[in-house]
Every structure is written in structure tokens, then in C-alpha cells.
């Protein structure tokens, strides 16, 4: 072994390159960063910027041709009542989904972080990760089966003799509909179902980091468990909730598949973007609609950063 070490270093081409790079760490750094930066910077950011520029173009109402001169007309169109309705409806749905996910996710995350250990913890972890990574479309499809008029929800309601409750739920204006699968209640349920794991994991991570000693200290100082929960655990878990809400909010804002498969005929933002760029051929308006989630998410992200959500990711 010692003889191997005494072999003088070969002065091959490869070694000269590696020495050169070792002596110039900045060059090495640049070489490492160049391919990923080129890819993401040119392909991704480049096309994103191209899209944003197109939002300042406008479409000629008579010929349907895109006029390539800078104008704010398309943004003016965005502020029409019908379009504003769509934006507000989407934002309201995203907020409702986020709130419901947080409420459902918290007990699961809390149990995982504070009571499950060893094998149980692995099982819980897998149980949360698997739906997150299993097929999005298949999971949406499952709800098409569940919420169909002839499906399992109706059957269970009939077995329990509570059909009239279901009727009452569906007859609520705006959120109701002919069947669960064509109502906002359905859309909302599916959104919550699909994004729930994104909320569980950051909350669990935040709760894991609450030191046991702090909870004991709170108890030693005479706080009953519910006060420890409210004054110690909840504030420390809050950044995790905010981190999770970034995902649930952003994903709901941009999704156009779920409301298309399960939902009423009133459109969400993503669907409008899809229609405007596709069949309607109005790229400037589609681009202007795209700016909405970007702006909303930038505000959201900077607020989240202030609340310390990024440390919880």
C-alpha cells in the first residue's frame, strides 16, 4: 500500500486539467454552473419573459391578428367584470382549499411528529408520501367515481337514510349543483384531497423541530397542556403552515385539470388561460392572465419569507 502512494503523480492531460481547475475555483464554479444555468436561464426564463412581453401586445378585434406594439390594452381587458370574477373566484377557491388543508393536515402532522416513532413513523411517512407521488390524474379520476350521481357517496347517503342532507347540500346556490361531480363542493373536495400531502409535510417538519425541553419548561411553569399547545407549539408550527400554504395556494391557482373534470361550467383562471391560448388564439390575454398568479405568488412568497416559512421547507 505504501508503495502505491510513492508512485509519482502522472502528468497526463487529465491531471493538468484537474490541477488547473483546482487552482482556479472560480473557473470550476463557472463550469459547473454553466450547463444548468444555460438550460434554466435560456429555455425556462427566456420563454417566460417572451410570454410576459406578449401580454403587452394586443389582439385586433376584427382580424384576430396579434398586433406587436406595446400597449396596456390587454391589461385593461383583464379588469373587465367577467374576468375579475374569474380571478376572484380562483383566489377564493385557493384560500378555502388552503384553509381546509391546514385544518385536515395539522392532526396528521402533529401525530407524526409527536406520537409516532420507529416503525409507525415510517408507515405514516410512506402513507403521506405515496399519494403525493402517485399519479395525479388517477387520484382525480378516483373522485370522479366517488362523486358521480350513481357513485358511492349517493349510495352511502341512501344506506344511512340521509339522502335529503345530500339534496340540501347540493341545493345550496353557487357551490351546489346537479350532482357532486359537477359542483364547486366537488371541485373543492378534490383540490383538498390532491394537495393535502403538501401541507402535511412542512407542518410535520416544523413540529419535529419544537424541542421537547420547551414543552416541559412550559409545563413546569404551570401551563396546562392546551395553553402549551396554544402559546408554545402553535406559534412554532406556524411557519410550517405558511410553507405548506405556498404549495396549496399556488397549485390551486394554476390548476386547470381538476375543475375541468370535476366542477361546474363556471371557469377558473387556469381554464381561461388554456382556452385563450388554444381555441381562442388570444395569446396576449392568456399571457396577461398568467401575470396574475405570478404577481399573487410574489406577494405571497415575500410575505411568507417574512414569516419565516422558508426555514420550514
Amino acid at each position, binding site marked *: 500500500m505504501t508503495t502505491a502512494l510513492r*508512485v509519482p503523480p502522472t502528468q497526463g492531460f487529465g*491531471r493538468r486539467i*484537474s490541477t488547473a481547475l*483546482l487552482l482556479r475555483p472560480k473557473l470550476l*464554479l463557472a463550469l459547473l*454552473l454553466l*450547463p*444548468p444555468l444555460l*438550460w*434554466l436561464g435560456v*429555455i*425556462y426564463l427566456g*420563454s*417566460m419573459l*417572451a*410570454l410576459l412581453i*406578449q401580454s403587452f401586445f394586443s389582439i385586433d378585434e376584427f382580424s384576430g391578428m396579434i398586433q406587436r406594439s406595446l400597449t396596456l390594452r390587454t391589461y385593461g381587458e383583464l379588469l373587465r367584470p367577467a374576468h375579475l370574477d374569474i380571478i376572484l373566484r380562483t383566489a377564493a377557491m385557493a384560500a378555502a382549499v388552503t384553509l381546509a388543508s391546514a385544518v*385536515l*393536515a395539522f*392532526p396528521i402532522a402533529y*401525530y*407524526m411528529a*409527536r*406520537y409516532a*416513532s420507529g416503525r409507525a413513523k*415510517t408507515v405514516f411517512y*410512506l*402513507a403521506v*408520501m*405515496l*399519494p403525493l*407521488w*402517485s*399519479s*395525479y*390524474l*388517477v*387520484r382525480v*379520476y*378516483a*373522485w370522479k*367515481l366517488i362523486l*358521480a350521481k*350513481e*357513485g*358511492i357517496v*349517493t*349510495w352511502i347517503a341512501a344506506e344511512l337514510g340521509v339522502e335529503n342532507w345530500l339534496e340540501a347540500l347540493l341545493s345550496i346556490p353557487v357551490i351546489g349543483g346537479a350532482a357532486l361531480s359537477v359542483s364547486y363542493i366537488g371541485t373543492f373536495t378534490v383540490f383538498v*384531497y390532491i394537495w*393535502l400531502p403538501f401541507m402535511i409535510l412542512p407542518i410535520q417538519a416544523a413540529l419535529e423541530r419544537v424541542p421537547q425541553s420547551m414543552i416541559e419548561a412550559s409545563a413546569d411553569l404551570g401551563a396546562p397542556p392546551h395553553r402549551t399547545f396554544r402559546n408554545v407549539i402553535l406559534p412554532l408550527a406556524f411557519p410550517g403552515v405558511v410553507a405548506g400554504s405556498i404549495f396549496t395556494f399556488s397549485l390551486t391557482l*394554476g*390548476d*386547470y385539470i381538476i375543475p375541468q*373534470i370535476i366542477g361546474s361550467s363556471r371557469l377558473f383562471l*387556469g381554464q381561461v388561460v388554456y382556452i385563450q391560448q388554444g381555441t381562442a388564439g388570444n*395569446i396576449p390575454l392568456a*399571457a396577461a392572465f*398568467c401575470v396574475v398568479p*405570478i404577481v399573487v*405568488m410574489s406577494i405571497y412568497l415575500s410575505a411568507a419569507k417574512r414569516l419565516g416559512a422558508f426555514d420550514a421547507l
Partner: protein
Amino acid sequence: MRSDAAKRKAPRALSIAAIAGLLFLHLPLALILLYAFSTEDASYEFPPPGLTLRWFAVAWDRQDIWDAIALSLRVAASSTLIAMLLGSLAAAAMSRTRFFGRESISLLIILPIALPGILTGISLRSAFNLGGISFSVWTIMLGHATFCVVMVYNNVVARFRRMPSSWIEASMDLGADGFQTFRHVVLPNIATALLVGGMLAFALSFDEVIVTTFTAGQQTTLPIWMLTELVRPRQRPVTNVVAVFVIAVTFAPLVVAQLLARRTEGTSESGLR
């Protein structure tokens, strides 16, 4: 330190809420399994009027399904390879050094999954249109690789941070050059992280539908096939069978990836016990 967690007993309401939450996450998938055997082919009637294995045979003979699976595998394999290369390069650069603009680069890497997929999709589509690039398998891969990079990056960068830089210095001191150090010291250490990141990237690409609807021309990946069936159902039981197939195919590598990630994390922690 972990053992006291087991001694504590969870309040009953909490256990019920946690278990109900998990059931909410898993029962719908179990239901699909049941429907794949249903004899009913025109509606989603529950309970199924009868059970049959027929639809598996029908699905097996459908060439369009096989074509879609083959295309999805091809796209996922290529974009995973690109993502593994770009992601580990970025991870190597970002883990050790601090430099101006570092924060913006890490933001740039996570942006494709932080922003709604529809933005990536429509931007790429309009850019391809502007550039006169026709839609093909290549444009699908290009889109997929863009958001797969972050999966590999996240896993590998975490591993790089745990690897002491003294190991690289030791290797160099012992006379290895940069390439030998990479081959014998760096690569074995990041291998499992790279593998887990690659698996996640593969799963992400295999399942992706939103960006794909924008970057595909006439090509039908498996998710696109599913989407078409969901919007305009032709043969519902066949869709059920394909859904079961997709669940089976994605669960296996995910369980492996999870166990692998857990095990390697476990070894680094087990030094304390």
C-alpha cells in the same frame, strides 16, 4: 431521545383525526381497484353489479395503451438523465461555495415547481411557436427536464452538505487528481442521493400532464391518454384497469426510493446511538 415519543400516549381525538386523514388519502385509490373488476361499463354505479377479470384482457390488447406507455417511459428516461446531469452539477456548485447571486440561482432552480405548471407550459408553447419549433417528443422532454432538475438538485445538494470537505482534500493529499477524487470519493458518496433524486424525477415526469398538454403535438403520453379518457370517456372499465396499472407502477419505485432514503439517513444518524 426518540424513545420517549413512544411512551407518550396520543389523545384519542387526535388519533382518530390522524387516522381519518390517512383514510381520506388512501380509500379513493382502493376504490379504483374495486372498479377495475366491475362488470358495469356505462356508468360508475356503486356497488358494482358484478365482478369480472374481462377488462384486464381487453386493456392488454389495446395497442394505443402500449404506445402511450412506451412514449411515457422514453420521455421520463431522457428527461431524468438530463435532470441528473444538470441537477448534480448545480448541486456541486451550490453546496460548497458562496458567491454573488447564489440566492437567485437557487430560486431559479426551484421556480419551475414553485410556479403553477400552467405557466411553464404556456411559456414554452409560445416560445416554441415564436421560434418555429414544431412539437415533438423532444419538446416534451425539454419541458419535463426543466422541472425535474430540482428533484435531483434537492437530494444531491443535501448529501453534498453532509459530506465533509476534508474528504476531498484528503483524497487530493493522497495523490488523486480531480477526476479520480470524483470517481472514487464524490460519486460513491452521492450515489444513493442521485438515485433517489433520479427516481423522483422519473416519477414526476412519468405522471406529468399539465406541462405536457402544452408541449406535445400529436404525441400521446400515458397521462395525456388518461386525460382524454377522463374528459370524453370511451371505455370506462379500460380506464379503470390502466389506472390500477399506473398505481402499481408508481408505488413500487416510490417505496424503494423512500426506504433507500430512510436507510441512508438512518446510517448517518445511527452513529449517535
